[in-house]
């Protein structure tokens, strides 16, 4: 079967999932039941759906952090399964903001953000410069030397965002980036997220419970019963 991605105007497909199935506990819990999804380059997509419907699971499969039982995933034109070097994808092409931000609490904001740059082999000077730029835009520049444990929830989310963008990824996967924040702070973090993504031409795939935020994305994909339905398309 040949699977050439369909054309959407001039835009290439950044992320494509085809018939993804995933279950846990040896098949006792089936979470994804044949998900199909496409995200176009430079666009933003919101994944919505009730808690436990499999949004995080889907994002993890797309990032190559976990493997589907069945189905295929393409990122930037190449299939994950066939990729000889999945780490290269994680180091250079994809940025992830985790639902529970996954920062290292004992390290400072700066150190947390420098680690992916070190792993990607960026020279420390260039990495610090990039961080300075991101910190400036997210209003964190005065917090660089603070340990994560001393940061507020909103500051942590913004730190996670900076870390995800350190290596200039082409795709940003954000799992409830505003989930743990109050409405106002959440709104501010989301504004920042959209601003950065647009400025750098990054493709955004974001899961969220917040309908208002979702409606500001280019598209909304609704998930239930382990399947995905497009509800709004503002392309």
């Amino acid at each position, binding site marked *: 079967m040949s699977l050439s991605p369909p054309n959407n105007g001039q835009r290439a497909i950044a992320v494509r999932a085809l018939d993804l199935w995933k279950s846990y506990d040896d098949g006792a819990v089936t979470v994804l039941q044949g998900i199909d999804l496409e995200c176009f380059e430079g666009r933003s997509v919101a994944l919505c759906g009730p808690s436990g419907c499999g949004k995080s699971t889907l994002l993890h499969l797309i990032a190559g952090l976990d493997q589907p039982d069945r189905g295929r995933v393409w990122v930037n034109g190449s299939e994950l399964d066939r990729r000889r*070097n999945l780490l*290269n994808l994680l*180091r250079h092409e994809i940025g992830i903001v985790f639902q529970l931000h996954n920062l290292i609490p*004992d*390290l*400072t904001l700066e*150190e947390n953000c420098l*680690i992916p740059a070190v792993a990607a*082999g960026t020279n420390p000077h260039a990495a610090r410069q990039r961080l300075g730029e991101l910190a400036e835009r997210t209003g964190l520049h005065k917090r660089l030397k603070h340990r994560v444990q001393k940061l507020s929830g909103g500051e942590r989310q913004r730190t996670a965002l900076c870390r995800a963008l350190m290596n200039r990824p082409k795709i940003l996967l954000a799992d409830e980036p505003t989930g743990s924040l109050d409405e106002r702070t959440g709104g501010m973090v989301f504004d920042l997220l959209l601003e950065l993504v647009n400025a750098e031409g990054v493709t955004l795939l974001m899961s969220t419970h917040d309908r208002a935020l979702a409606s500001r994305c280019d598209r909304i994909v609704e998930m239930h019963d382990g399947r995905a339905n497009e509800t709004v398309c503002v392309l």
Partner: protein
Amino acid sequence: MEEPMRLSAFSEEAQSGIAPNPVAQAAWHGLMWLVVANTVGVMLAALLLFPNLNGALGEWTYGRWMMVHMNLELYGWTSMPLLGFLFKVYGVDRGPAALWCRPVLWVWSAALGAGALAWLSGHSSGKLFLDWQGYTRILFIGALLTLWLFLLLKSSLLSGSGLRSGKDRRVWWAKLVGLVVLLAVPLLLYFASSPAVYPPINPDTGGPTGASQLESSLIVVLILLTLPCGIARRLPGKRRAIGVAWWVLAAESTLCAAMGRANASHHQPLQYMSLGTLLLWLPLIPAYYSAFAWHDNTRRWRTALYGWWGALVVTGWVLFLPGVLDKFKFTDGLVGHTFVAMAGFTSTALILVVVQILGDGGWVFNRTRSFYAWHGSVIAYAALMTIAGWLEQSNPAFTMIPGTLRNLLYALRLLTGSFMLLASLDWFVGASRLLREPASLRIDPLQEKTA
């Protein structure tokens, strides 16, 4: 004063150059894995210094090579010379049985090779040192059972020919008990390797899982007391030193059993005080060892053993004290301590055993250059990592983010690792020579040339 003794372990065939000595073969296998594992270690040290090189590794990342390094050091280097010890003690290194030693060693090495490939492909139980998954679990346990069956069937144990005199009977029983204990190893390893038996990470503390410190330390003492038996003659008139050692071990084991395993926090005085009783072994081990007759070639290795044992017991106890452990836990400081334990103490004990059995052939390990390169590097390595650990406690990112001081320490670490690799290569080349030219069993060809 102890008299120098000529104890040659070679069979007639070996001395006339027909078949190589199985103990030398076991040492050769161990050294081969030491060289491989040390090469990987040097590569890992270089990666820490130049993280950009990570990109060139593809899927075979630092984390996977790390498992290869650790597992090969443990199941290759620190295990295979002990196969030589077992060959000797069970008497299968002589006569027709000796022919089987080679295949038994190769089965073991083949399982390790398969293991290394599996770890590199990302198959792991997540348990350090219990990393046998899928087919490698079968292969490695198979290698252990092969060895066990070989010892059972080819030693004189079954024929009962050793049952004549009272002393023979005691030796026979000791060997039998040894075999029964040995059988527990593959069984325990098989079950403990499963993540289902106990989790790799303690869910309450986020740290590794483990039981009593005292218990595991006493097992090390037991092994130390067992090692001379069967390879070195007891000196007449030294019964007391031997008796005292076994009595103290019995007393401490009773203490350990009485304490039980529950709630073994190192903050409890009972815990660190009882662990302090291990300090008794500082003088007891040298006293015990000098009650045996050792080959002349073992002299510097015995001295090294006492030194490393002392360093291990003292630093082990100090590190365990409340306040100290809390600072050094999970830092490079513990890496330094592990080095004292494995590269210093364990490696020295193994080499001592091999040199004693090889006797004259022990020259392989006695060259001054490799001896000092190894021990000097281990001492320097442990010191460097203690400094790094100390800095890490106030700055947890110290080892992760490249900086001048960190890079300096890691560059020196790379240097010490390279010297250790060179020393192991020197031993390996010597051991290869032993196997190739049985004539060189008696004297170091290097010395012969200069003499």
